[in-house]
């Protein structure tokens, strides 16, 4: 007995198909025979025999399985009955369909491309939407996670909470299993990492000790923080993010337990996060996070003010509403206990909604757009199939006369269109995979969960569903048309001009009108979004991004006094200013279009009502910042080198702040108050700057000299120069290193890139929508072309007669073109109405343009008319070139 085994796959296949009663016997005998053959003739022969056996037995095995009438055998029927009929039928249909395809390979290729486009678009959008909207967050039991903001709306400082809130809520609550938080202003600090290689500026997020526990994330290596590390001035420890660990430490698990130098402080690496948990993708999209560190919930951190973004896990059975009531109760009690306590509050929402909510409307728009493209593709194809099926009328009439039932014919056609759809789907999946890879790899877009975008099982299931749906949808109309009877007339070729062709013509033209209407809606919405995008870009930023770069700088050097620290940075400015080609250099602790905090500011001598005190966005800046950003100075003066800690405190405010604090008065010379006793004298007023995003207004802003206010950590250096980036980077880096060799110098970007990143989500959506719009336009015009082309060829004799009777070529052309325009015009009219309705729905995504913007509507109408005209022109030309004699002869 040899050791050789029969081919596993064939065996498994047969095993699956055989009825249970026969399985053991058949397989055993097959195995035995196989062994014998191996011994006698060798493996190859034996395997060949085995495979042939399986292949030949498949039908019978399946039929035996479905055998429902074991007792009835008539003499001249074979033992293969109902099961076989079904099988034979299906196999026959597929074979027939394949033959039909081979006959018309060009059409088939064309058609699969069209479907591929539609399916690819739909699947890509589904895959993008899936991690954001459809899948739960990649955390443990995510629907019991809640986000607790201080207030429901407002700037960063209005939604973050004090650590004392967390501490007290933890004690007093009845609704939460556990509560935690992270430092929302993490990017005010940075950590110089000096390992082997370039010194790097790392970004770390402070988290409460139970942060990972609450989320249900366990470190992949190592452990979570312990008590000694999570207290004020506790032992330095860090948990690395997976991406950083792979990038800088080559995914070496041995790094856990070793110490790395962060800001000259030896810090133990106690763990590594798993790849499945991407902090930045979930909570801070677009920002790179390198590690987590402990954020103590203590009195010391409480004094920092509103810092925490709070997350909590609800108790089983507790709803968001009851959690909210619980928070309200706690706030009440705490206020009663300590009436002067500030910063009390809490607004509970589901975490998933918090993270993804802002993009919901955009995603829905994309889904609708993809759906529209799919519909247009289907309409197009249906048209083409209809046209083709008319050509095959004779074939099907013959089959019908020979006894094929209508259901059989319909089934045949449905099989063909399903086959078509599935092939198209395969192409579509390819397109979707490429698209999703590109999307997942992009870090330039601040949309959460983008890194999790991929074509996965759910997307493939979706694709299959779409393909099958499309196949059936496409197939049904031609199938019903073709099997509608009138065989005699068809076979005898006397069917031309009968009512059925009129019906099919109406169907085809109706489909084209529908396509044009859908394309119109898509184009109008795309146009509106495009205008919004342009409007957003056009916004007067308040500063000049062109020609300036920013560097994130920080030094690990320790200073004895704040004056020393300021002197160091002044020296940085001096050295960089000396670089040839550099115009102005400035420093700030927060660039615009990033995150920011809010501080209270009051005009001296003015009392404000409860809850009405003004909040402004503070910026600590060095001398020259405003000039380097080209923020226009409207009144007063800039900061100077002699504004030091020895001299009077000064502040520069923006227009809005001036109007709010001293309405109608000249603010120069007025005193402003912040926390702390000393007044800050207003010495200048500058223009408003968009600090949050281009779409939002600027709010109140104030600029404080770094020499006078010490509340700053890392600084960004702005370098304005006419030199191109490539020429500037090297010398600036050299200048920085000459001052402090351990200073990281690689975090730079142009201010243009900064602005770009801020509009990246909008641009992303727009790009996708434009792609859909373009596809829709292409498909619609192809549809028009196909219908007109077919119509012209059908009516060749009629045209011939007309020309023979004296009609000129240009008259013929005009007739065809006018038909095209009628179709297109109807489609545009319908589409216009549709656009009117749909545009209202996308209002939240628009900026600076009304949903009923006449220019966009008119523009798109013109585009569609032009494209339609072009599509109709070629058939028109062909029609006008008809040779009347040839046309007449074919009557």
């Amino acid at each position, binding site marked *: 007995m040899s050791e050789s085994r029969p081919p596993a796959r064939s065996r498994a296949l047969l095993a699956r198909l055989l009825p249970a009663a026969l399985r053991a016997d*058949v397989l055993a005998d097959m195995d035995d*025979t196989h062994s014998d053959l191996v011994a006698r003739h060798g493996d190859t022969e034996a395997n060949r025999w085995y495979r042939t056996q399986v292949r030949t037995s498949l039908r*019978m095995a399946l039929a035996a399985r479905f055998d429902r009438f074991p007792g009835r*055998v008539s003499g001249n029927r074979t033992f293969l009955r109902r099961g076989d009929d079904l099988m034979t039928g299906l196999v026959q249909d597929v074979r027939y369909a394949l033959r039909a395809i081979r006959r018309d390979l060009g059409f088939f290729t064309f058609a699969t491309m069209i479907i591929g486009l539609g399916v690819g678009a739909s699947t890509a959008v589904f895959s993008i939407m899936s991690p954001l909207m459809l899948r739960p967050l990649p955390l443990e039991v995510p629907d019991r996670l809640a986000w607790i903001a201080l207030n429901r709306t407002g700037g960063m400082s209005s939604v973050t909470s004090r650590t004392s809130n967390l501490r007290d809520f933890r004690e007093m609550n009845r609704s939460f299993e556990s509560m935690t938080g992270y430092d929302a202003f993490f990017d005010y600090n940075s950590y110089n990492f000096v390992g082997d290689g370039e010194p790097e500026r790392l970004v770390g997020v402070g988290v409460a000790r139970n942060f990972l526990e609450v989320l249900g994330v366990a470190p992949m290596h190592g452990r979570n923080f312990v008590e000694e590390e999570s207290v004020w001035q506790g032992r330095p420890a860090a948990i690395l993010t997976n991406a950083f660990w792979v990038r800088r430490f080559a995914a070496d698990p041995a790094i856990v337990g070793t110490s790395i130098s962060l800001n000259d402080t030896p810090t133990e690496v106690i763990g590594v996060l798993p790849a499945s948990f991407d902090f930045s993708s979930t909570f801070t999209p677009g920002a790179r996070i390198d590690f987590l560190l402990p954020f103590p919930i203590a009195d010391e951190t409480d004094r920092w003010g509103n810092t925490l973004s709070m997350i909590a896990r609800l108790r089983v059975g507790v709803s968001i509403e009851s959690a909210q009531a619980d928070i309200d109760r706690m706030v009440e009690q705490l206020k009663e206990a300590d009436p002067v306590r500030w910063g009390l509050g809490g607004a509970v929402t589901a975490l998933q909604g918090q993270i993804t909510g802002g993009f919901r409307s955009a995603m829905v728009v994309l889904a609708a757009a993809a759906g529209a493209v799919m519909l247009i593709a289907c309409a197009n194809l249906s048209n083409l199939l209809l046209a083709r099926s008319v050509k095959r009328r004779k074939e099907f009439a013959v089959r019908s006369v020979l006894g094929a039932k209508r259901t059989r014919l319909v089934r045949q056609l449905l099989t063909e269109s399903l086959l078509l759809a599935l092939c198209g789907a395969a192409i579509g999946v390819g397109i979707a995979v490429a698209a999703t890879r590109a999307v997942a790899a992009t870090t330039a877009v601040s949309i959460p969960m983008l890194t999790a975008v991929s074509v996965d099982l759910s997307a493939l299931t979706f694709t299959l569903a779409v393909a099958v749906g499309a196949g059936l949808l496409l197939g049904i109309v031609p199938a019903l048309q073709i099997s509608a009877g009138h065989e005699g007339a068809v076979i005898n070729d006397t069917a031309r001009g009968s009512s059925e062709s009129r019906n099919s013509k109406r169907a085809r033209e109706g489909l084209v009108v529908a396509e044009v209407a859908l394309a119109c809606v898509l184009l109008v919405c795309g146009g509106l979004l495009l205008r919004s995008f342009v409007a957003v870009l056009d916004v007067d930023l308040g500063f000049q991004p062109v020609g300036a770069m920013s560097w994130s700088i920080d030094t690990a050097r320790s200073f004895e006094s704040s004056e020393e620290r300021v002197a160091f940075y002044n020296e940085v400015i001096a050295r960089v200013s000396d670089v040839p080609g550099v115009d102005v250099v400035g420093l700030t602790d927060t660039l615009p279009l990033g995150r920011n905090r809010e501080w209270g500011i009051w005009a001296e001598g003015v009392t404000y009502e409860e809850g009405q005190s003004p909040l402004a966005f503070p910026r600590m800046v060095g001398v020259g910042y405003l000039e380097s950003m080209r923020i226009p100075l409207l009144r007063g003066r800039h900061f100077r080198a002699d504004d030091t800690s020895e001299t009077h405190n000064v502040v520069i405010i923006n227009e809005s702040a001036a109007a709010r604090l001293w309405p109608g008065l000249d603010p120069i010379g007025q005193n402003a108050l912040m926390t702390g006793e000393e007044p800050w004298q207003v010495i200048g007023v500058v223009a408003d700057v968009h600090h949050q995003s281009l779409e939002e207004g600027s709010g109140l802003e104030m600029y404080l000299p770094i020499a006078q206010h010490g509340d700053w950590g890392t600084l960004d250096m702005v370098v304005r120069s006419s030199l191109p980036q490539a020429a500037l980077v090297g010398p600036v880096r050299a200048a920085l290193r000459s001052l402090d060799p351990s200073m990281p110098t690689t975090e730079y970007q142009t201010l243009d890139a900064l602005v770009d990143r801020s509009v990246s989500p909008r641009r992303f959506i727009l790009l996708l929508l434009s792609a859909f719009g373009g596809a829709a336009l292409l498909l619609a015009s192809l549809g028009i072309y196909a219908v007109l082309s077919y119509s012209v060829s059908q009516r060749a004799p009629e045209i011939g007669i007309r020309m023979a009777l004296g009609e000129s070529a240009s008259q013929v052309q005009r007739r065809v073109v006018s038909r095209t325009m009628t179709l297109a015009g109807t489609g545009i009219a319908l589409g216009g109405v549709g656009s009117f309705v749909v545009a209202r729905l996308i209002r939240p995504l628009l900026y600076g343009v009304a949903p009923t913007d006449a220019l966009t509507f008119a523009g798109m109408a013109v585009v569609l008319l032009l494209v339609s005209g072009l599509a109709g022109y070629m058939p028109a030309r062909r029609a006008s070139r008809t040779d009347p004699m040839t046309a007449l002869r074919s009557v």
Partner: protein
Amino acid sequence: MGRQVLGEFEQIVLLSVVRLADAAFGRAIYEELARLSITQVTITAVYVTLSRLEKKDFVSVQLAAPASGGRRQKLFAITPSGLAALQRSREQLARFWAGVEVGGGRAGQ
């Protein structure tokens, strides 16, 4: 039951069972058919047919070990009604062949 005629494959399977007598195990039946049949035979087809024949009470099944040793396998034997069915099929065929000349290997001449 009484007036049933066997299909072609059923006939040759039953005949093989008869020919093999005490050695009519599934695999042996297949090998006999493979040896004598003009068309390709599969083991699956053999078993499916045997199963049907059993249901019609034309063959009986019992488990036995072959003389040469090895695992216990199904041993098939023809039943009286099976024999009768074979007989009927043979008679039917004979009736139609009566007086038909198919000579020289070319039909219709």
